């Protein structure tokens, strides 16, 4: 399994400009757009930090989504059937895909997180715990996206449409860019049903963002762990059946 992981990591990081682009995109959004928008949003205390952490959560979500989509694309490109023929169990393959996504997450999100923690004067222990929370969130997102792969084997277009719609809704109906307390009641009710809300609030709790703007860290931790375990379980059970049952491309 480690050989497979190494092989796929080589490809994932083959494009250095793409990784650097992630960092530049974060820096631009944080240092330019973040400065501007934080002057407009005065109701939320220290919105600049709130916004910066939100950007990191969006990056984490996007990478988790990428990892899931990549898994599906590999089936359509004909790579997956080759991997399925190699001497690894389906469970190991699923785990390898998760580790790949986590590794990409660490490399792409790590530097922006370090910048935030340096600017915020946070100790390295906080940095590590916050990274762990991000990775846990990433597992949940990847699990959902990979588990949805059964749709893709019927129609890749429908899968893409579902993932795009779901991503838009999950990102917007959440506390990623605005706290729950400032949302209209109906909007807040929907956001409370969104696991990303709990992930975002847990991440900010660890980084020391104003607790009055966040859900309780205990509840958030419970939801994030529960979602991570659920999607892992569903994925482990569902994916092998789906992969071996579909007509290969």
């Amino acid at each position, binding site marked *: 399994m480690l*050989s*497979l992981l190494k092989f796929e990591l080589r*490809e994932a990081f*083959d494009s250095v400009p793409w990784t650097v682009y992630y960092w530049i995109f974060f820096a631009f959004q944080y240092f330019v757009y973040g400065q501007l928008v934080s002057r407009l949003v005065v109701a939320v205390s220290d919105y600049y930090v709130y916004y910066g952490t939100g950007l990191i959560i969006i990056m984490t979500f996007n990478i988790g989504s990428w990892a899931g989509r990549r898994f599906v694309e590999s089936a359509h490109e004909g790579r997956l059937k080759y991997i399925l023929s*190699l001497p690894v*169990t389906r469970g190991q393959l699923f785990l390898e895909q998760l580790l790949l996504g986590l590794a990409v997450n660490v490399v792409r999100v790590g530097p922006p997180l370090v910048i935030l923690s340096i600017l915020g004067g946070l100790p390295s222990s906080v940095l590590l715990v916050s990274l762990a929370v991000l990775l846990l969130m990433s597992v949940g997102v990847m699990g959902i996206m990979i588990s949805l792969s059964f749709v893709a084997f019927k129609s890749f277009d429908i899968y893409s449409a579902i993932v795009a719609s779901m991503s838009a809704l999950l990102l917007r109906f959440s506390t990623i860019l605005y706290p729950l307390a400032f949302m209209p009641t109906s909007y807040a009710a929907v956001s409370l049903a969104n696991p990303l809300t709990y992930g975002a609030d847990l991440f900010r709790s660890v980084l020391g963002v104003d607790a009055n703007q966040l859900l309780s860290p205990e509840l958030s931790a419970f939801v994030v762990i529960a979602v991570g375990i659920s999607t892992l379980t569903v994925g482990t059970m569902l994916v092998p059946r789906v992969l*071996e049952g579909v*007509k290969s491309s």
Partner: protein
Amino acid sequence: MSSSSENSVQTFNLTKSYGEAKALDSLTLGVRRGEILVILGPNGSGKTTFLHLISTVLRPTSGTATVMGYDIVKQPLKVRESIGISFQDPRGFWRHKPYHILSFHASMYGLRGEERSKAVEDTLKDFELWQSRNKRFMELSGGQAKRLEVAKLFVHRPDVAVFDEPTAMVDLEGKRMIWDMIRQLREKGSTVIVATNEVREAEYLADRICIMKDGKELVMESLMTLKDSITGGDVVDLEMSAPVSEEILRAVRDVPGTVRALQGGERSLRTFVNRSEDWLPLMMTAMQGLGVRVSSIRVSEPSLDDVFLHYTGKEVVQSHA
């Protein structure tokens, strides 16, 4: 059929369905240790599905199979350790280089260090890919990509090597090279299964040929036995002085000993007959009766193409290698 203990691969009512459609329908066959079995069939006959099932890429809907004694449903990991498959379409590793692709493949089968480096280098040279070892996969030609796909199985030499159309997209010289390499693989102890719809490939490689259609095995024998099995063991090609009319066709079919008569071109007929030496005088008399002169007669054994046509009713791709 030989007993399953002599077989590297043995299937038992192996079936794969997609909804109502059966891609493979209760297939029971055995592949003997150390033989090259060529599976010949038109597109959609179930060849690829069969290969994917025994390689555990797909899971059967019902029935099962063993590979080197391991059950594909109950012991898939053991099966994967024993079998290697070269796929029909070499795709998916766009950014990787041939050296890394083979090195990775070797590592998955436990080759390490010097042993792996040597196996990869030798294989790249054998398949004339050494000069392209540092090109990206997406920069390879179609033929090079296909050779690389086939070459994977030569790095670790599995007990059972499975090739799905190994010479599709490969030039004539490359085809011959791959065929020779596949035969070498057999000589080194691997059992080889090749799925193809190229007659030449089947004739060149096969110890036995399995003809499939609609997910079922129609027949599985050696080439000689297959040729002998056709009723009307002689093929007689006739060239007429006049266009072949219905009347001529009917007269030829009515000649005692005619099994089948097909119109080839405007003036040509292909007939399958019993004992051509007895049949030819009778046919000549019948043509004289119609006032038709036979300008050319060629008698031959049935080709694999004829065998295939006989069993499936479809013509196969004729390679000119």
